[in-house]
């Protein structure tokens, strides 16, 4: 029996869990990254790889301890390190003596056969292709619902009257969505969540500032890797807007057509005219778009030694001056991690 796990990035695990279960697998939900995850990851990763690599290394090892024997992840052809994560992870895990299946999905349009083979491998219930397709669509639907709810919390949280209400309701909403198993259930849970969030008592006279979040995808999406920066800012009365969501990003990477990214690349053209790997170019483009939309500032999150974000950060100093928008950059590494990492975080 396949016991499947996958990288944990924010709340996406809720949708992936459902999808893989629909295909008939036992799913080992990757544990939320903790200090233990990081310690494990650091111990077995090359010293100078980027933080996401280390956290994922730790996550995989933890999941393997919990019984996982199949790791599902995505590849990509770089030119950044993430495209090589899977094979280096696999080598290290095997070197430690674990037998695992590493299923690394590449962009389906350029590797269609490979894609189908891997789907087949994971299709333990031997569903028809149509049913697989429906399962994928449903998973996507759930992921979109989760993303939309998160976006809503970004607006509600800074305005909440009682500190912490939004986060509490948000976690509840995640649970509802986690239990929803049909499109109809998902829609209902979603409506319910939106209602509950909108019902949170708001403080009327608070001065709200608006900050855009840009940077590397993993540290943007996984709150455990960035010290819950979005929650912290929100409770300080900052409305944030994150430039990246899995449902926004996957779409773009899978079929290259997504209006928002197109304009963001256009905006970046005068500064970084070509794609440089990772999200370096997007970072610059989004900063400019945020400034045009009148945001008060931008925060850039990047793992320490992150190659493309180093390029974009070098350029951002000038961008900030010319577009008159303050930018604060955080390079995150295992040291910054340790101090603030919450060791025993539990969903409420």
């Amino acid at each position: 029996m396949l016991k499947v796990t996958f990288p944990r990035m924010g709340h996406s695990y809720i949708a992936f869990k459902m999808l893989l279960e629909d295909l008939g697998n036992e799913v080992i939900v990757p544990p939320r990254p903790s200090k233990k995850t990081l310690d494990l990851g650091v111990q077995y990763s090359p010293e100078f790889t980027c933080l996401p690599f280390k956290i994922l290394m730790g996550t995989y090892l933890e999941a393997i301890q919990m019984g996982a024997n199949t790791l599902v992840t995505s590849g990509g052809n770089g030119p950044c390190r993430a495209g090589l994560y899977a094979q280096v992870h696999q080598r290290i895990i095997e070197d430690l003596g674990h037998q695992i299946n590493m299923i690394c999905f590449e962009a389906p349009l350029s590797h269609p056969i490979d894609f189908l083979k891997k789907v087949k491998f994971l299709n333990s219930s031997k569903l028809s292709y149509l049913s697989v397709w429906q399962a994928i669509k449903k998973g996507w639907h759930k992921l979109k619902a989760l993303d939309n709810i998160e976006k809503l919390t970004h607006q509600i949280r800074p305005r909440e009257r009682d500190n912490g209400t939004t986060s509490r309701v948000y976690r509840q909403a995640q649970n509802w969505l986690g239990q929803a198993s049909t499109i109809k259930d998902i829609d209902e849970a979603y409506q319910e969540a939106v209602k509950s969030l909108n019902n949170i008592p708001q403080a009327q006279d608070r001065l709200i500032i608006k900050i855009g979040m840009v940077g590397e995808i993993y540290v943007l999406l996984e709150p455990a890797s960035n010290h819950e920066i979005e929650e912290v800012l929100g409770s300080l009365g900052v409305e944030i807007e994150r430039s990246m969501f899995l449902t926004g990003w996957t779409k773009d990477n899978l079929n290259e057509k997504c209006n928002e990214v197109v304009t963001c690349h256009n905006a970046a053209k005068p500064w970084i005219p070509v794609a440089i790997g990772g999200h370096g170019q997007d970072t610059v483009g989004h900063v400019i778009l945020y400034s045009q939309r009148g945001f008060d500032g931008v925060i850039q999150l990047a793992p320490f030694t992150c190659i493309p974000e180093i390029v974009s950060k070098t350029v951002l100093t000038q961008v900030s001056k010319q577009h008159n928008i303050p930018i604060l950059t955080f390079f995150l590494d295992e040291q910054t991690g340790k101090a603030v990492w919450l060791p025993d975080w539990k969903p409420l």
Partner: protein
Amino acid sequence: MSGTTVGIPRALAYYLYFPRWRTFFTELGVNVVTSKLSNRQMLDDGVKEALAEACVPIKLYFGHVLSLKDRVDYIFVPRLYCLNGKTLFCPKFLGLPDMIKHGIDNLPPVLDTMLNNRDKGIISRRIEMTKSFFQLGEKFTRDKVRIVKAIYNSLKVENKYCQLLHKGLLPNQALEVLDGAKVPEKLGKGSLNFAVLGYPYHLYDDFINVGVFNKLHRLGVNTITTENLNSGLLENIKHNLPKEMFWTFSDRAYKAALHFFKEGKVDAILYVTAFGCGPDAMVYRMIELEAKKYPHIPFMVLMIDEHSGEAGMSTRLEAFTDMVRRRKELGACLC
């Protein structure tokens, strides 16, 4: 436009492509100026100007540009994207002109020619490169024939340069030969043979790696590097990875390592890497894991950083060489 000077920083891709670039520019009547050999001052300046999180070679590149910028009319910082149709360069190469243009004040105009033939076949690859250089040439002359001739001659020189490298010369020696020096005598006088691997600008910048080659040669070690191998040979090396290393230099280094391990002729393999290098963090672990399969060939990683000390480096190299030598003698007695 005679009398124009173009500055070429003696760093990063310089070690592989300088002969070609220089020939191209001089054929168009442009003066080529390079920065000096890397030195402490340049590194310090670069460290000040570049982002703290950047890798050492990028900081050094900043230093080279700074030392050139007031002496030249243009600075040549090409955007090396993809040269062989397949592998790309590190994202910092892809964004190098941008980092330089927006990271250093008061620069002369930057020539940021895009060199990209990703996913192109063998012929369209040539056409693409010719186009790029043609556009570059048009900045300096209207004489199209002259540009074409310059491109042709630059390729000829590059060919010659590569031949010298394949004979076993180091890039700096090969450059001297191109400039008229005699081909140095056969280099292999030592009793040990090491493969020394790593990105060209880690290996061939004597300042940043504190003279690895000189030290090894003095210890009686003959060296061979990736650049000494025929490029056809590298391309044919099979590996068992699900996916290619998609960065040019990493791919070359990894394949060269496989070649030397499999061939089994060298006494040891050294890998030189730089502090803060993104791709290498993955690559040298892959090579390390590979090395485990060949326990009879000692393998060591040397890391260079902003403060690499002469003494520390010497001690490590001596200890390693001693170990290899003892092993070899022991092995010789046993059989």
